[in-house]
């Protein structure tokens, strides 16, 4: 059986979803996958939620926004395709949605002034997932891009995102919500029955949360009436896109037991959500830079080479430190190799790809390219891989790339 390569996994996928535990380099990896899609001739977009200065730097743009920004830094690598990036801004997406759907200025004003709306859009957990669904729907439906790579939101559970569409659809189709919406034929037998049922739920909620909350919520729900149908339809549509057989799910993890355990949990929950992880990528894997068997000979050569350059004692101390460093790396590489093997056993027929650890000291662009070469070495043309001309470094230490600026009261 021929081994499956990463380009084959991504080939022809209009949507690639990257899932994985936090802190494994998922965002940069998503950008690298998107770069590959562009190199394969697609109009590619990476949709991210991470306010990473480093990612913007790596892509060679000053800032990422809620609208796609075209990335030209690597254009020699994708002559036929294009690469864009977008950073999700939940508040902007929500406000945009309201402007789009509520035509009447007075109603729009009433909605924006409603406290329940303000808190829903700005404070409450979960909005990010809902808005990611909203944005994803727009982008998958539009014809601007044909290969989208989604870097999933950093929630405790990456799959909250996946469940958001269905939760939305279920919530807005539920009877209790319908009760708040325009009344069915009043006086009918069923309407009376429902009135009683929802009345008791409402009075219970009033008891728990206070009357003003319920009034606000009811006001919110009735003003929001038109939007429910919209949300529900989008929830269903995105659910369908996620389950499209051409959609690819890639689980990204790192070679340590905690992250591997999380990756397996994500995989199982993905299966429960009737989706399938097509491939795994283990990022930041240490590789031995000098095998133990070669070490004594190499270090002898190094000692000889340096003999004329520095005092003997200094050279000896240096060689000792090199050997100490080599040992640390060797044992860590062995642990990582074992972790990758364990994941391969778990993954069965699904491919597990390994991305080497890129030392942190490198520039953001050099790191992105190193990761690209590590994953797509065979597909890459070395001539196009030279690091693009560096721009002067951004002087400001992270000043907030804008995601939260509007969040504050």
């Amino acid at each position, binding site marked *: 059986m021929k081994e499956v390569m990463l380009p084959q996994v991504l080939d022809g996928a209009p949507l690639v979803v990257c899932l994985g535990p936090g802190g494994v380099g998922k965002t940069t990896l998503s950008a690298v996958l998107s770069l590959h899609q562009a190199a394969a001739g697609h109009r590619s977009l990476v949709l991210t939620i991470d306010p990473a200065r480093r990612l913007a730097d790596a892509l060679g743009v000053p800032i990422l926004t809620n609208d796609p920004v075209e990335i030209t830094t690597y254009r020699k690598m994708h002559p036929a395709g294009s690469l864009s990036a977008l950073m999700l801004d939940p508040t902007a997406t929500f406000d945009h949605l309201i402007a789009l759907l509520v035509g009447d200025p007075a109603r729009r004003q009433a909605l924006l002034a409603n406290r329940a709306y303000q808190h829903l859009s700005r404070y409450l957990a979960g909005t*990010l997932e809902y808005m990611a669904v909203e944005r994803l729907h727009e982008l998958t439906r539009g014809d601007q891009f044909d290969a989208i790579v989604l870097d999933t939101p950093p929630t405790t559970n990456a799959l909250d995102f996946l469940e958001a569409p269905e*939760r939305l659809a279920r919530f807005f189709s*539920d009877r209790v919500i319908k009760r708040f919406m325009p009344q069915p034929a009043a006086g009918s037998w069923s309407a009376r029955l429902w009135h009683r049922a929802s009345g008791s*739920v409402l009075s219970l909620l009033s008891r728990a949360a206070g009357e003003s909350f319920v009034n606000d919520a009811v006001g919110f729900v009735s003003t929001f009436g038109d939007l429910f149908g919209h949300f529900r339809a989008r929830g269903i549509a995105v659910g369908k896109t996620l389950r499209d057989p051409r959609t690819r799910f890639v689980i990204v993890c790192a070679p340590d037991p905690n992250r591997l355990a999380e990756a397996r949990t994500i995989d199982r929950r993905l299966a429960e959500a009737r989706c399938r992880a097509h491939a795994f990528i283990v990022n930041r894997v240490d590789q031995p830079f000098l095998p133990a068997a070669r070490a004594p000979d190499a270090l002898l050569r190094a000692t000889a080479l340096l003999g004329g350059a520095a005092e003997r004692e200094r050279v000896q101390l240096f060689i000792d430190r090199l050997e100490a460093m080599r040992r640390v790396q060797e044992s860590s590489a062995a*642990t990582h190799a074992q972790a990758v093997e364990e994941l391969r056993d778990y993954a069965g027929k699904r491919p597990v790809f390994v991305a080497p650890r890129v030392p942190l000291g490198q520039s953001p662009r050099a790191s992105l390219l190193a990761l690209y070469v590590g994953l797509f070495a065979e597909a890459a043309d070395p001539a196009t891989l030279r690091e693009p001309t560096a721009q002067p470094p951004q002087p400001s*230490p992270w000043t907030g790339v804008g995601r939260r600026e509007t969040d504050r009261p």
Partner: protein
Amino acid sequence: MATTVDNVPKRHFSAMVANRDLILVTGKGGTGKSTFCATLAELAARRRGAALAVEMSVHARLPEMLRPESPVHAVCIDAEEAVLPALGRLLGLPTLVTRIFNNRVLRLFIRTSPAIREMIMLDELHHLVSSHAERRCPVIVDLPSSGHALSILETPLAVHRLLRVGPLALIAAQVEELLLDRSRCELVVVTLPEELPVNEAIEVVRRAQDIGLVNRTVVVNQVPHAVLEPEDGELLDILRSRGDAELGRVAEAARGEIDEVAQSRQQIERLRLAVTDRIIELPLHRDPDPSRCVSSLVEELA
């Protein structure tokens, strides 16, 4: 080679576990916040005889990090499980609650209204802290990763503004009082000496300050120590320039290590400039086994 921790962190954490009733631990995913949470719980148990370690997640991870004979008791708060007792307390009607909880509609309402879910978790936490404080048993919480943790901690404030009266408003007020009690509560933000985790730590600190959480400690975990010295760079350049491919690779890798250590220092300096909180550095641990990692941290900090 300085792989051990000096006395400042020891004193700091020993005072923390001795005095606080509630220690909240958060950080970007993958910074080792669960490991550090387990470490603090073990330290607290040594100091006070018992400790409760709480996590708010679907799958419990703390138990495997604690020693089998550990006096730390670990619990996992699941919003849907906690909803029954919480609603019972809220309404003072435990039996009615069982009946209404079977109402599919209400269950859906709870699942889809994030604020309610967060409030239920916070109320459960408040309840655990009150019941354990009588026995002088501190509660150490492994919060979700920073973004979600912040929205949980901001919920009482939001609920407070949204609701003025009613039992839910009362709970919000109680939880807020506990979180803002400077003698009882402390927030620990775990980070790594890397760009994104440091950004997140700065943001968490800023927002925690807005909420009014005054006791804060930032832990920089996994700080690499230099095996090579900066002046080794000269010798590495020579190795690299002599056309020996194998030695060239060695020199390249060694240069990567030196740069990485320098980069870490730079990130820690950036953090120190951005926040006024106490910042504590912990050395890199390469042991992949979580429980061994906790034990060695406990030994270093005890």
